[in-house]
């Protein structure tokens, strides 16, 4: 039996980047961000969750971002804006 050299066909996956957890304190006026992926009932599901969170967290705001297509991620600008305003972001899928 002879030995041969072969090339591996994949790219080694880099180890995941460690990201620190956001602070777990609840501000006086929490902003809950909701990102709907655009599928049927996704927004309705998230809004129900938003209402429940609003009731638990007290006065604050709930903001809903609807993606026009489930196939595309939100833009970096939308992500930055949401991160700057919201203290908690919930995403969800429909169908």
């Amino acid at each position, binding site marked *: 039996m002879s030995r041969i050299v072969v090339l*591996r066909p994949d790219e080694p996956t880099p180890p995941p980047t460690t990201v620190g957890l956001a602070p777990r304190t609840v501000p006086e006026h929490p902003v809950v961000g909701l990102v709907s992926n655009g599928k049927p009932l996704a927004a309705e599901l998230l809004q129900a969750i938003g209402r429940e969170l609003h009731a638990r967290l007290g006065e604050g705001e709930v903001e809903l971002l609807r993606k026009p297509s489930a196939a595309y991620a939100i833009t970096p600008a939308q992500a930055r804006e949401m991160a700057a305003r919201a203290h908690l972001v919930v995403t969800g899928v429909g169908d």
Partner: protein
Amino acid sequence: MAVVEDRLELEEGDVQETFFANGWTDGLPVVPPTPERVDAFLEVVGADDPTVLIGFMPARERGVTLEKAAVNAVMAGCLPEYFPVVVAALEAMFDAEFNAHTVLSSTGGAALGLVVSGPIASEIGMNGRYNCFGPGNRANATIGRALRLTAMNVLGARHGELDASSFGHPGKYTFCFSEDPPPAPWRPLAQRLGYAEGSTSVTLLPLEGVRQIAQQLNGDAEGILRTVAAALRTPETFAVGKGGQALVVLGPEHAGFCVAQGWSQDDVREFLARESRITPAELEAAGVHLESGAQHDMTPGDDGRLPAVASADDVFLVTAGGEGAGWSAYAPTWAPTIHARAASRRVRPAGEPLPDCGPDGCLIPVVKR
């Protein structure tokens, strides 16, 4: 076996099991990608630097280099002369409109369906005639397989990682064929895409499985095309009512009747787009609920109907197949056009230098077919 090196030295008899164990195959045996075989592929495309990226997928932070494409093409069983077609198809896969990140991960389980149009197809021995979607032709089988292996191995498109296909379908092993040049005055797809005469193009579509269309007793072109339109508007197809794209492959008899009766290719595409439109009542009769307030606008048009294909431009009409009783075929894209679209590229002949296209590959504007 845990593999950490880019090159492995193995007992020749252990190669297959090592590749299976590492999840590097599609379930079938592969040709061992030795450096010598890979170099032969890189030479054909004039790759001075094998680390050049064909394209990069920001959502996955992964890209495909010429070398990785060549390794996977060797594994698939390609010959070196097929590699320019593989590279062009991968360039199409990285077209932003193709949206490969979603195509490769969706539960809908789309195949990478590839149509090759132009002289290179016959030069490398592709099949656009009898059994063009079936087994038996090395170029058809292995070019399509090379795309899938690359997506699996480099982009993580495999079950358990980034491919969530609920079912998938056999076309996910390979789905590649060549256009049989159409009868005059119809023109090959490459020319209708805007590429110069004599050029070869690849068109990559995210496809469901191919379905045959039987029409063996009707020699009237409009009658034949009504049968095709009826196939396009099947309510259970996800894109029907929302507007997708479709690969429509007319067999020799059906294309011949259309040409003889004065139908142009644009006539056919416009007819199919119009006559495949479907009413909300027809969808509801099949148990399909209409979306409201979600990503798909399912508001009927002025004709009271909804599109199966988004427009005539979204009908990819080609001729292929062998003579017989009278068959055609079609495959719908797995999702509406708001999610992904077909993409085309010119195949650079062997020896033509690679352009410097930057980190995202070369984008060629979509032109009217």
